[in-house]
Structure formats: C-alpha cells, structure tokens
C-alpha cells in the first residue's frame, strides 16, 4: 500500500511541477531561450498570491484572475524591452539576460519581503480525501486539476487557434515563419507572456503546498530544468510526462527505501534516457544537417 501511496503522491506532485515546467519548455520551443528566471517567476507568482490572499482575503484560486494578467504583462514586457533588441548570439545573450532578470526579481523580493518563509494559508490546505488507507490531499488534487485544465487550455491555444498555428510555425522554422508574414516578435512576446503567466499559476499552487522565500527559486529551477531536459526541450507534453516520471520514481523510492536514493536513482534513469534519446522523451532532434 505504501508503494501505491508513493505513486499517488508522485502523480499529484508531478502535475504541479508539470505546470511550473510547461512555461519553461514552451518558451524554449518558440524562442530557443532557456528561461533561467522561471524559478523566481514561480516564486513571484507565489508572493503575489500570498499578498492578495493574506492581505485582501481573496481565495488563492481567484487571485489567478489578477496574477496571470500581471505576470503575462511582465513576460511580454521583458521580451519587448530586453530580448527583442538582441540580434546577435541570441541564444547565449538571451540566457544571460534572463539570468539577470532572475537576479533582479530575487533582489526586489528580498527587499520587499525579506528572508522570512511564508506560505499561502487556505482552509483546504490540510484537508484530504481518504480511500481506504490511501490519502488524497485536497490541495494536491486541486493542484493537479488546475494543472490539467491549464495545460488543456494551452493545448487548445496551440492546436486550435490561429495564434497557435503561428506559434508552431515559429517553433518549426523562424525564418520561414517570417517569410509567410508571421510577426515572430509578437508571437515570441506572447509566448513568453504565456510562459510567465503559467508561472503565476504554478506559483499559486507551490505557495499553498510549501513555505517559500526568494531563495526557494534555486531548488525550483534546478528541478524544472531536469524535467524539461527529460521531457525534451520544447515539448509541453514531455514536461508533463517527465514531471510525473520524476516525482513517481523519487516518491516511491523515498517511501519504500530512502529519499537520498530517490534522487540518485532518478538521475541514473535520466542519464540512461539521455544516452538513448539525447533530445529527451518527446523533444525534437537537435542535430542539424551540416
């Protein structure tokens, strides 16, 4: 039964990490930019939720109506102001700019909130559904549900809208997309906005399940990068699958054996997968014809 509980814990937590990682992989898919700021963006989303929920008394889920537009605007603005002007060595320069953005946001959060750990409190944070001896925490069920809904919305945007076609065309070939009249800058800015907006949703859920401060972003970004690498850069579904695989492996081994070995074995699995599929489980093949 403990193994089953470990699997349940892993799947539910995996949904949360998938949501946090989806923005990272989406941005890379379109812009080939590794958004090093995604960890701190999630924490920024958590802080925004904390402020609205604690000081105004709004339910954390309702705060998404405010935080997602704010974070979307942030992402859109960062692209237009900092990334769009970069024309040479775009990949490496963008990476450095996003790292700088992360450091600036972290500094600002430290200024405003200090280092004290906070958590978004809700009445349902400590309730759960029991099925026999199995426990389904309400907060994780809600997190998984919201992740599924938002990733579903993302799917509709990607595959059922004109913008989605533009985005996918840009993902496949930026030059060709420009030639057929797609405004690549607008698509990229919108994509970064969506990615950061998804970070707001991920942050809201993260803030309800864990205590956090600005420094929490370091552990987050390292895990999110691992998820995106395993799933394949650019693949939203890959991120979802990788997050669940990672958390299930870690959680099952943690409950039946040791948390130390949970992480070790996951990284062994990651190395084995990358040996045979360097592009990740669902990633595009990166090798280009010379």
């Amino acid at each position, binding site marked *: 039964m403990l193994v089953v509980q470990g699997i349940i814990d892993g799947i539910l937590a995996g949904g949360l990490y998938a949501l946090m990682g989806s923005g990272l992989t989406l941005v890379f898919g379109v812009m080939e930019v590794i958004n090093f700021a995604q960890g701190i963006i999630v924490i920024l989303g958590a802080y925004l939720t904390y402020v609205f929920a604690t000081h105004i008394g709004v339910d954390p889920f309702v705060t998404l109506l405010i935080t997602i537009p704010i974070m979307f605007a942030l992402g859109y603005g960062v692209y237009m102001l900092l990334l769009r002007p970069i024309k040479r060595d775009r990949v490496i320069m963008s990476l450095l700019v996003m790292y700088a953005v992360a*450091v600036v946001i972290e500094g600002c959060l430290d200024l405003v909130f200090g280092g004290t750990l*906070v958590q978004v409190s809700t009445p349902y944070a400590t309730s759960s559904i029991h099925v026999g001896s199995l*426990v389904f925490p309400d907060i994780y069920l809600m997190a998984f549900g919201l992740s599924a809904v938002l990733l579903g919305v993302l799917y509709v945007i990607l595959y059922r809208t004109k913008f989605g076609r533009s985005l996918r065309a840009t993902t496949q070939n930026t030059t060709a997309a420009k030639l057929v009249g797609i405004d690549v800058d607008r698509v990229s800015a919108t994509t970064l906005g969506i990615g950061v907006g998804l970070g707001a949703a991920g942050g809201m859920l993260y803030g309800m399940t864990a205590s956090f401060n600005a420094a929490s972003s370091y552990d987050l970004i390292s895990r999110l990068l691992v998820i995106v690498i395993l799933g394949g850069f650019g693949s939203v579904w890959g991120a979802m699958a990788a997050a669940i695989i990672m958390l299930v492996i870690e959680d099952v081994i943690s409950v039946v054996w040791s948390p130390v070995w949970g992480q070790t074995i996951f990284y062994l699995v990651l190395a084995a997968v990358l040996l045979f599929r360097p592009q990740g489980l669902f990633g595009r093949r990166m090798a280009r014809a010379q």
Partner: protein
Amino acid sequence: MKQRHLLGCRGAGGRRRFTTSVLAAAFAVAAAAPALATGAAGAAPRVHKGLKGTVLIGASVSLSGDFSATGTTTKEGYQVFQQWINTHGGMDGKKVVFKFLSDGSSPTQVTTNYQKLITVTHVNFVVGPYSTLLTKPASVVANRYGQALVEGIGGGPSVFAAGLHNVFDVSASAAYQGITYAKWIAKTYKPQPVAFAAITTPFSEPIVTGIRKYLLARHFTAPVFKVYPLETSDWTPIASAIEATHAKIVALATQPPDGNAFIQDFASAGYNPTTLFEVSGPDQGQGFVKAVGKQNTTGVMWPNTWYPGAAEGPVNKQMETIAEHMLHVKLSGLSANIAEAFSAAQVLAEAVNHVKSLTNAKVMSYLRKGHFTSVQGAVCFLPTGQNKCAQPFVFQWQHGNQVAVLPPTKPGVTKIMNPKPHWGQSKY
C-alpha cells in the same frame, strides 16, 4: 528614406551597441540587486578602519540562499545587541558597530567574508554566522588569524571535531540538545515505535540521532528513520512513510521549510501523533505561525536554549523590548536566532569588559576559564568550545504562545501539554 538610410548605414553597429547596452544595463541592475537587498536588510552604518572609540565586530550572515530566513534573524540578533550594548556602556567603554557581509549561504563565501572582515576591514572581533555548515569554515579562518569566534548557532559536532581552540559556542551543542526530550519520552511512555526523519545538515541530524540512540537503548523501536538531502523540495513521500507507521511519537530533524511541510502533510492525512518534536521550524516564531496556521501550532515541540519571556534576568527583558520595537513584532513572534546571536555577542562583551582589552588572545584566555551569563542562561566552555553549563530546554507551542515545558525542574517552565490536541482543534 532618411530613416532607411540611417538603418542601412548604422544598423548593424547600432543594433550591436543597443544589444550591448541592454545587456550592460541588465547586468548593472543584476549586480546592484543583491547589494540593494543587503542594504535593505541591514542598517549597519559604514565604518572605516581606524575610527577611534569604536569596537568593530564582523559577521557573515546569510541574506540569500538556503539559510536566508534564519540568516536574517541571526543578523537581527546582532543588531539588537548593538543597540543594547551601546546604551549600556559599550565594550571596554567604546561604542560597538557591527559590520555585516552577506554570504548567500555558501561556505566558500563565508571563508572569503571572514578573511575580508579580518584582513581588509580590520574588525576587532568576529562572531559566528548561521548554521554549523557555515560556522566550520568561519572558525578555520578566525583561527588562522588568531581571532576568537564566539557563536551561538553552530553547535554541530563537526565544528568541535576540528580541535580548534578559538571556537566558543554559547548555546547547547547539537548532540546535547535533544537529550531533555529523549529523557522525558523514556520516562513518560512505555517502549514503543518512534518515527524519525532527518535532514542531512550537520546540526539538525545529530540532535535526532542522539534522541534515537538514547531511546533504542531503552527498548523503543524505530520503524522508520528517513534521512533526506538538504535539496529535497517534496516531503510528502517522507510524511507518507511516517504516517504508515502510525507511531504516536515522532521526532524530526528539520529546517523550517520541511518542518512546516510535515505538519501540513500530517494534518492533511489526519495523522495526529501524540507528541511531535521538530528541530527547527517551530522555533521561528511568527514565521512558523504564518506557515502552518495558528490552529496547527499547539502541542508541537522543539529544543532550544531560549524562549520569548524566558526568566533569564533583566537583560533578556531589555533584549526583547528592543527587538519588539526594532523588528515590529510581538514578543511571541521573536525568533530564537535573535537570542542565540545576541548571546554570542553578549558573552564576548562580558569577556572584553572583564579583561578591559580588545586583544583577542587575552579575551580567548578569559573565555576558556570564565563563567558567563547570557540571555540563554549560564555559559562556560569545554576546551573544544562547547558550552558545558548549558541546560537545553524543550519548548512547546500552547495556544499561540511559545512556552518552556522541559526540564520540569527548571524554574518558570509550564506544564507540558501531552497528548497534543488534534490538528486545527486548538483554541486561543
């Protein structure tokens, strides 16, 4: 056409310059951000070496990284001491000024910081950072330059195992901190299963390892002992493994994030141990209340050598008053780190004022043989630096207040709440 001409002639270079400007601006802001953060977190005035009539004390504090929460409260403890000592005659009759450097919770940066404090800033004394992990490299640097390192939050065995004679830990050492709780369990409960988990930090883990060793020797069993790395960010499976044991007694070596998460997981699963002991998390005052909710605090226990309102003399009361005003928090919300940091500086000041000298060798000589009184209680040192006079308390949250409950023989302790009430059912 003119615009096209400009772009045509200067486009590439202009773009490059613009890109460079954007990057330069971004990095300038990036470089400034930590400094801004540091400046905001601390209000230590700038002091230049050679300033007459001033005792300069240096400390590396973690204002970012894994220990940023507790590092900040450590710094606050020193700032509270600075205000207190300067209204009580100073050190050797001189005004005391602290110089802080932020270390990002990195042992490497701690080494750099203490070297800089001693050799560049020329501080008169150094006091400890937060955590055993960071105290160890700090003590090595201080020893290299013949400086004492008086500290209150670095009592893991590895600090003392180095055999340095310049380290003075004013708090109870790690291996000793949990023994009061272990003795109480052995006296109160019949031998039965006890669930353990421990984060792999050099201070927290030895506390619970000590409790486990004591109880196993008295026929208690340990059906689960989960050791997890510092980087762990999903504690639910560890909580699930503990819940599956149905143990009534749970002892966890935690830091605040995991300590808070375990309580949320236990409450969510409806698992309510009779007694829950966490090394760190519950000791964070208002931060703990905010994280787990007031209704879930009652009954949770933790070890420490101080608590708000402790009956440890007038200085303790003065420290609390200053801290309340300076930090804008209620008494019950004060972190124990404040008292631990304050104690370190307080003992240093007692030694300096006794020898009437700012010479480290003289001060260390007196520290080794003297008896001191800090806001945490009695202090006297073993040759290796542990405080052999410390009497560790066990604390418990009771109806929104932190109270000392063990040892029962200590004056001023409150009756222990056993068993702890069910999650969410505590009244205020």
